[in-house]
């Protein structure tokens, strides 16, 4: 971050002129420019929604905040540290876009939630009383205490997502990162999800980053919004999202805005324009799956 005086409240996340370019592979010569000169900071205890079309660089931004990718240019700080350091201290909780875990596993809800904390426990030690208390509290906050002993395969899709949220908060993070959490969920479901995140936000004093291409999902959960379509700027304007701004974000590579959201359903429909989203995917070739490190 630029060397100016310490802000009164420490920033949760500082993204300082960050660009990321996916390297070319094999004989391909085109590298993929995923995000370009993104510059903003997130105050603690904010619930920030980042809205953008598919291929607009949302997942790349998440990977940069989590420290899975290193920026090509610029720097990312999470609570004043590198993302890797913050992650090591369990400051970041993460809810993946899709649940790719193997649901045939012989593992209980309690054991899955414990995994969110396990990486912080010394290998030769058992779970301490503190660990167990944190795990139980996480399970209680997502209202799954009755199912804690059940095998993971016995749960419904919605319950499973709550397990994964509990796993994300079991390590007492200060930042919760949610990647497209309500894809394919109806409006009532999005509202319930928003309420749950709101509860966690209050109970645990969390900073929340929610990334989505769906305006309704953002509206249900976030109290501030930024728009990302390859590049993003934070303008501290009180204006809400106007149709004109949204049209720009989803049709062009444009600066974003944030402010208090007041969106009506009509606007939300316009925001989620599949044609434009598709076009962007072509333009930048950066899908939500790119850069995965599976083997």
């Amino acid at each position, binding site marked *: 971050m630029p060397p100016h005086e310490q802000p009164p409240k420490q920033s949760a996340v500082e993204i300082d002129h960050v660009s990321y370019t996916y390297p070319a592979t094999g004989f391909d010569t085109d590298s993929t420019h995923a995000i370009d000169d993104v510059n903003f900071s997130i105050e603690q205890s904010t619930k920030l929604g980042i809205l953008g079309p598919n291929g607009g660089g949302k997942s790349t931004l998440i990977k940069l905040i989590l420290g899975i990718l290193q920026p090509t240019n610029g720097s990312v700080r999470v609570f004043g540290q590198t993302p890797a350091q913050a992650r090591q201290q369990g400051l970041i909780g993460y809810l*993946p876009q899709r649940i790719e875990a193997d649901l045939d596993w012989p593992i209980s809800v309690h054991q899955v939630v414990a995994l969110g904390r396990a990486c912080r426990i010394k290998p030769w030690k058992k779970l301490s009383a503190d660990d167990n208390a944190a795990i139980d509290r996480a399970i209680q906050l997502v209202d799954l205490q009755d199912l804690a002993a059940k095998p993971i395969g016995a749960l419904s899709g919605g319950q499973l997502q709550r397990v994964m949220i509990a796993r994300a908060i079991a390590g007492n993070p200060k930042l919760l990162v949610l990647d497209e959490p309500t894809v394919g969920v109806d409006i009532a479901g999005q509202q319930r999800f928003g309420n749950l995140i709101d509860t966690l936000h209050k109970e645990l004093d969390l900073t929340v980053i929610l990334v989505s291409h769906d305006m309704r999902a953002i509206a249900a959960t976030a109290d501030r919004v930024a728009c990302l379509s390859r590049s993003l700027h934070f303008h501290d304007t009180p204006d809400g999202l106007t149709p004109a701004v949204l049209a720009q974000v989803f049709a062009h590579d444009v600066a974003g805005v944030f402010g208090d959201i007041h969106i009506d359903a009509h606007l939300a429909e316009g925001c989620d324009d599949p044609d434009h989203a598709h076009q962007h995917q072509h333009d930048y070739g950066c899908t939500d799956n790119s850069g995965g490190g599976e083997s």
Partner: protein
Amino acid sequence: MNDLAPAILAALVISIMGGALSVFVVLKRLAFIGQGISHAAFGGVGIALVLGVHGATTMGTIGQLSIVVAFSIAAALWIAALSRSHQGRIDTAIGVVLSASMALGFVLFTLAESKHDHDDHGHAAHGHEDQHHLIEDILFGNILATDWTKAAIASTVAAVILFVTWFNRRRFIFWAFDQPVTDAYGQSSKRTTNTFLVLLALAVVMAMQIAGVVLAAAMLVLPGAAALNLSSKLRPVFIYSILIGTTGAALGMTIGINAGYPAGPAIVLTQSIVYLITLITKTLAPKLRS
């Protein structure tokens, strides 16, 4: 019977180790990787043979094992790297490594054989016979020929593998259950994959002593697969798997020794039958209860 004591000890420790690792192998769907590694080890045996390192002495045994282990670990890590660069298409990676190593192994065996022929002229026929025995032992195992040196090595390696697995149990469970998120939780999935594959390569080479190149991987799959038919709780699955592994080994050894069958295949066959029984139990149990 005392002659068989080292063989029995080796079979026991290797099957305990196989039982523990096989749960991860099955849950992480690495059964085919085990096959890839064991066939790759064949190339390693070929290299040791051409270099003139063989198991006639203690140092020779250690030297040969070291070469085979190094080759298997390299193959395992190469499979992991290939599958990363092919976007997780691990079957392609294994297909490449498995066939290349087998081909290399056979070429080197022939090379070693022609060297052998050259060395002692009049005994060519005898050399061929040795060679055939050797290849058969490598392909299908010859546990009954285990001496105390081999048993001691197997016990040490198995103990190390079990300790490292226990030490990394949470990391391995998280990785095997939900690898795509482990990086976000501060655990490098690449590092975890490589750690596990090194253990697996070591385990496969140890299991080769019992069951040879062709059947070694089975000992790292069958107990876990059978145990997963019996329970949907993590701890019992591990316990059942180790019990099934050791019971299968003990029964297979007994049958092999008394009936004169080769012990390795007898052990694998016994574990396969146990697997079938658990599969039937799993299918029938709910019906019987209702």
